[in-house]
């Protein structure tokens, strides 16, 4: 296991099973640790990220209508040497997981080398790909990744409704090829007004192809998605309110045997404020490690220009990835994001799930409201603004 001291104890990444565990100080002491690095003593600044998203290219020929970095066939690509230096910085900071993305990362020839470089530094590498054009040989070269997620919003027309072209068959072939190559495969499902209604069918199809996990992603107004179309594609308020019951149904339908899992992204957490059972036992969210907006905190993103951003959708800070270990605590942009989460305005301030949600998606707030504030699509925020809460 890999251990990182924290003021409250330690983060522990297990290696025999894929899990990240927060132990209290007594638990850390039971591991034989004593806080000798001073983490349990003097103040040492905010904690480093546990997960970093590393954009390794802005090249991509898919042309997805909602691409959050506006990737193009001639997009910028980062050098291998620069990525390795960034991995050094992630190791020095004690980062546990690095998620390679883009653009389309499989346009690079060195992904297997980069995965090995991450592992050599004790960092778990994972990858996101569209799967378009992924050959058997290329799939085999991705075995160094702990998991590869293929963008798959649903079969046929459902996929096309999200991305603007029908790449579902190509994504399905990629899932099958990766599974045959022995790679652990998940799918990324972007939730739009159209794809949400087909979720059960999409998950069933993904599982039948050999995927072991579905990550549900809120559609976000960044890159090419930062347009008026966003307002017609985003989940309806009724769909947002129904997320909790929908997840329960999906869990019962697809996950009961433990062979398939459903994840939600940080930006979906505020929608759980409409779920009575969750609001009655909000500590359950934190106990099971549900992360809301960790931008600038447990999460950081490193762009292809080397600059660090609070998350992949946010504007960058001045800090560069190669300086992450030394500069994460003091960078003013990252500090501003953390400070907002520590003392949000109402209705977030009094929300029972604030500790996990952390105020919802600030990227959505900036686009819809023009401000770094409460998530305007959160059911509780909507009710507050209408005077109902």
């Amino acid at each position: 296991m890999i251990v990182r001291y924290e003021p409250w104890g330690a983060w522990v990444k297990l290696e025999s099973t894929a899990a990240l565990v927060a132990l209290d100080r007594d638990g850390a002491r039971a591991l034989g640790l004593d806080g000798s690095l001073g983490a349990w003593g003097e103040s040492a600044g905010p904690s480093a990220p546990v997960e970093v998203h590393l954009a390794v290219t802005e090249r991509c020929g898919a042309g997805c209508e909602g691409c959050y970095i506006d990737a193009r066939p001639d997009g910028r690509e980062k050098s291998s040497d620069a990525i390795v230096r960034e991995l050094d910085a992630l190791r020095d900071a004690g980062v546990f997981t690095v998620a390679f993305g883009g653009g389309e990362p499989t346009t690079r020839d060195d992904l297997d080398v980069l995965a090995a470089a991450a592992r050599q530094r004790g960092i778990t590498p994972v990858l996101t790909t569209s799967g378009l054009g992924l050959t058997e040989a290329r799939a085999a070269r991705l075995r160094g990744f702990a998991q590869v997620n293929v963008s798959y919003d649903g079969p046929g027309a459902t996929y096309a409704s999200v991305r603007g072209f029908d790449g579902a068959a190509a994504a399905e072939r990629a899932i099958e090829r990766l599974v045959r190559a022995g790679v652990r495969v998940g799918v990324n499902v972007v939730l739009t007004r159209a794809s949400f209604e087909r979720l059960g069918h999409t998950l069933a199809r993904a599982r039948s192809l050999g995927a072991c996990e579905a990550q549900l992603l809120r559609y976000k107004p960044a890159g090419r998605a930062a347009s008026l179309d966003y307002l017609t594609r985003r989940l309806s308020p009724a769909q947002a309110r129904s997320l909790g019951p929908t997840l329960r149904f999906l869990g019962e339908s697809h996950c009961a045997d433990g062979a398939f899992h459903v994840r939600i992204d940080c930006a979906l957490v505020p929608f759980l404020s409409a779920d009575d059972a969750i609001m009655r036992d909000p500590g359950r969210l934190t106990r099971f490690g549900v992360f809301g907006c960790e931008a600038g905190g447990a999460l950081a993103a490193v762009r292809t220009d080397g600059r660090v951003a609070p998350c992949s959708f946010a504007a960058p800070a001045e800090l560069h990835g190669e300086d992450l270990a030394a500069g994460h605590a003091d960078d003013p942009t990252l500090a501003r994001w953390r400070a907002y989460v520590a003392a949000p305005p109402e209705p977030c301030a009094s929300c029972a799930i604030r500790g996990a949600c952390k105020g919802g998606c600030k990227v959505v707030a900036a686009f819809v409201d023009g401000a770094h504030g409460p998530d305007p699509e959160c059911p509780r925020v909507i009710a507050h603004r209408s005077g109902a809460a």
Partner: protein
Amino acid sequence: MSEERRIEPEQILVARVGNGANCSSIGSVVDTLFAAAVVGTAVFAALAAALATEEVRVVGERGGDASPEAASADARPARRGDP
């Protein structure tokens, strides 16, 4: 480190299961969250067992802020049962 260790499930503040494999936004497994309580208990027990057997390696240059302000409910994982 091979000596016997005993980790109590109650000492686990947070259990994040699975690999975070998305490159844009941080994700969390939720099917265990919504499953019956017995499933959650089994998850914590299994993790406690794994913690008792694996070799330990410490990483990172330093820990985080130990100040009372930073150790508020927003800056640390909630203890089990915390609101």
